[in-house]
Structure formats: C-alpha cells, structure tokens
C-alpha cells in the first residue's frame, strides 16, 4: 500500500519545522556567497503555509502540494520563491487525481519538481544550485524504485542523495544565481538552496517513516 495525502500533509508540516529550525543556518550559508536571506525567505514561506494547510480540511496530495506552491510563490520572493514554487506546482501536476502514491508516483513528484525548477532557472548539474541536490535525489529515487524498494526506502534514498549533493556543491564554482558573481571565491561554500532542498527531502522521508 502506498502513501496517502496524510503523508503529503505530514511532509509539509515537517518541512515547516525543519526550515524554522535551520533558518539561521541557511541564512548563514547565503551570506558568504549570496545576500544572506535564504533562511528568512524560506521560513517566511513555510510559516505562511502552515495555517493555510490547517484550513484545508480535505484535499489530495496534489491539492496540498499546489497549496504549498502558491503560498511559496506569493510569500518567499527572491530566487528561491519562484523556483520552489514552480517545483511544487509541477509536482502537484504529476500526481493530480491520485489518492494513493506508490513508488512511481514519488519518483514522478521528484522528477517533475526538478524539471520545473530547471525550466524556470535553467541550471545544469554542477552549477552550484539547488539542482545539485534535486538531480541526484531524482536519480537515486528512480534507481531505488527500479530495484523494487518501498516508498519509504525510495524517499530515504532521495534524501541521502540530496544531502550528499548539497555537500558536493562546496568545491564548485557557481554559474547561476548570486554566487556566480563571485567566481573562484565561491569555492569552499555550500549552496544554501541545495541545503534547503536536502532538508526538505529528508523531511519527506521522515514523514513517510512516522
């Protein structure tokens, strides 16, 4: 049996929690190679999501993801707002009408989110953006699904790959976003958007485990 909209709900609630907990850290990551606001931006968005989610009594996973998308678009601002917003919007579209999410649905969610972000932001892997967390996560999820793993295992594989991907942004020179202005001076710093992606995908796995 797959995951339900309850998982989507739990994921979002947990996301709001980990973003709040990591607000200062995300902003600190954004300071040396950005403009020092990523934690504030993400936290403003997820703080706005929580009460809206509470007032959405019923709703499919797609409804919940769409609510997150619209709220992030209209509250986060900066680069991360439209990028994550588009990601969640495309993710919602990928599972529209599904009451139950199986492994294939989860891979579809992740891939659609990633593709939406690429569509808007045009970032390639290795350009030191959140895509460097998303793409390994999509690949790992697809691989786990192909290997017949459970929904929980698929999400855990994605989360671990995103975390590794975030760490792996450290030696990179940025080619997109504010960090790209720094040239070689970006080397040695982790990309804040990749880090927030890793946090969000770990929350997805934890929501499935609970």
């Amino acid at each position, binding site marked *: 049996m797959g995951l339900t909209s309850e998982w989507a709900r739990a994921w979002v609630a947990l996301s709001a929690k980990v973003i709040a907990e990591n607000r200062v850290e995300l902003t600190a990551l954004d300071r040396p190679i950005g403009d020092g606001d990523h934690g*504030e931006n993400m936290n403003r968005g997820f703080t706005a999501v929580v009460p809206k989610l509470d007032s959405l009594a019923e709703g499919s996973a797609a409804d919940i993801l769409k609510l997150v998308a619209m709220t992030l678009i209209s509250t*986060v601002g*900066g680069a991360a*707002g439209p990028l994550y917003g588009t990601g969640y919007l495309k993710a919602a579209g990928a599972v529209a009408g599904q009451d139950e999410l199986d492994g294939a649905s989860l891979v579809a969610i992740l891939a659609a989110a990633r593709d939406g972000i690429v569509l808007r932001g045009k970032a390639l892997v290795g350009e030191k953006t959140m895509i460097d967390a998303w793409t390994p996560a999509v690949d790992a999820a697809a691989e786990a699904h192909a290997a017949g793993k459970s929904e929980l295992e698929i999400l855990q594989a994605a989360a671990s790959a995103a975390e590794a991907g975030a760490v792996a942004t450290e030696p990179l*020179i940025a080619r997109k*976003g504010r960090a790209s*202005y720094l040239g070689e001076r970006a080397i040695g710093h982790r990309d804040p958007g990749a880090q927030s992606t890793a946090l969000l995908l770990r929350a997805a796995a934890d929501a499935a485990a609970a």
Partner: protein
Amino acid sequence: MKKLINDPQHVLDEAIAGVAAAHSDILTVSHDPNYIVRNSAPVSGKVALVSGGGSGHEPLHGGFVGFGMLDAAVPGPVFTSPTPDPILAATKAVDGGAGVLHIVKNYTGDVLNFETAAELAEADGITVRSVVINDDVAVKDSLYTAGRRGVAGTVLVEKIAGAAAQRGDDLEAVAAVAEKVNAQMRSMGVALSPCIVPHAGEPSFELADDEIEIGIGIHGEPGRERIKLEPADRIVDRILGHIVEDIPYVSGDKVLLFVNGMGGTPLVELYIAFRRAAEALAGQGIEVTRTLVGNYVTSLEMQGFSITLLKLDDELTELWDAPVHTSALRWGR
C-alpha cells in the same frame, strides 16, 4: 549593529508608511500587497512604468515614482525581490491601456518574480514588456554567470524611459529607449565597509581596517576582489578604467557621469571622487555633458560608491533634461 528601526520584521511596512506620510503630494502607498503608485495613476493612454526589487536601496525605487519617471514601485523585503502578487497588483493599478514596462534589475529572483507577474498580467489582458538592466561591469564573463547585475544605472533607465512615456511614446518605443540606455551604460562599485541586513544582524562580509572590496553589487554581496585601501583618486581610476574599456567609451563621446553613494559615504567624499572621474574622462577626450552625484541606489549603510557612465546622444539628453517630479529626482516643475 545599531539601526534606527523598531522590529526588523516591520522595516518595510513602517518605511513605506513614512514614504506615504512624507510624499502624499506625489504618491500613494498600498499595504498588503505593498506597492507605491503615483497619485495620477493610471494615466489614460500613457505607457506605465513599474520597477521594483528588494528594499534597502532607497531612494530606489519608491523615490522615483512620479511625473516623468515611474508609475509604480514594488519594494520587497530588504534585499529580497518582491513576489509576483504585489508586482501584479501594481501593474494592474497603473495600466492606462497603453501597456506596462517592467524595469527589472538582473538578479535571478527579480527576473523570475517579474516574469511570473508579467505572465499573470498578460493573462488579465495587460500588455507587458520587460527590460532587464545589467550595467555592472564587475561581473566579467557573462557566459558563465547569471549575467551582469543591474546596479546604479537603473535610475538612469527609469528617468529616461519615464520621460519617453511621459511625452507619449508607445510601449515598443519606451521599451526601445530603455534598452538603448541599458546598452549604452556601464557601472562599477566599491565598498569601504559592508552593510548589515536588519534581520541578519551581522555584516555580509568582513573588511579589515585597511581593505576595500572592488566590484561589489548592491546587496552587500562581496565583490570581485579585495585590495588594500588606496587614495580616492586611485580607486576612481581603477574602476573608471574597467568601465571605459568595457563598452568602450572613446574620445569624442558625450557622457552622463553619475557618481552614486552606497549610503554611508558622506557627500563631501563623493565630490572628491566625482572630481577625479571628471578629470580622468576629460584627459581621455570624453566629454561630460550631464552629471548626477548623490545617494540614489544604495546598500543600506554601506560606505562606498559606484560610477556609472551613460553615452548620450541628442535624444537621450533631451529625455534626461525633460521635467521630472519625484521625491528623489526633480526638475523642470
């Protein structure tokens, strides 16, 4: 960090309330969503200009709302681009049926949020054109970056395109003049001290007592390189050199020379820099025919300055000279 604020979360709301109280003769402020429109908006039949971006650059953009310049400004939180909602609301509020020009500084966040707003406005039947400002020569190799940033030159685009719209040019023509200004101008900035975002509470970068940061943006981002403090004339020569060779500006060109303060540098120092820049340009046969000196595109309390050159022809000169009535730039009426 000492700031003349109440709660860091309320900086934007309280500041625009102050703008409303101070300039009710020129503009009206909308709260939630936050935007600033000129009192006469929408001006029927006139192309409307909307600009915006993170706060902390005042007077940009709200200080440039009014006759002959912007119809609306959309301020985001400090250094964070606004979301599409207020951009859309402002766009609707000022559309006078002749279309709306979005003037967007080239940062991923600004570009994406304005893009979304423009799509939504188009869906509502408003014609929107966008011009993306990228005057900063500090960011060299645009193929491998998000492209050159939009910095102080933005105010020149807003003034000149605003004059074109005010005289009745259509949307294509106003967009074309904005693109022309953007193409003919280059800027570069230097920081002597960093700035501190209110909610962050710490400086965006650290500079030793004898260091300056060359090629900074306007968001407290670190710059292209860090060097030892030099006399003002050498700093000016250094950044002016990068600017002049970029387009390049050549002997015989007429230019507007704009020395912009980053917020914390006293005017007396900006004039010292202006003097040197004017001298150096004269030495190269580049004629300064229009000037602007002051704090127009700032980075909170950062100490530093930027230089912008805009190549002028008769059309741009005439549009620059045209009357403007905003809280931060005013002449001719």
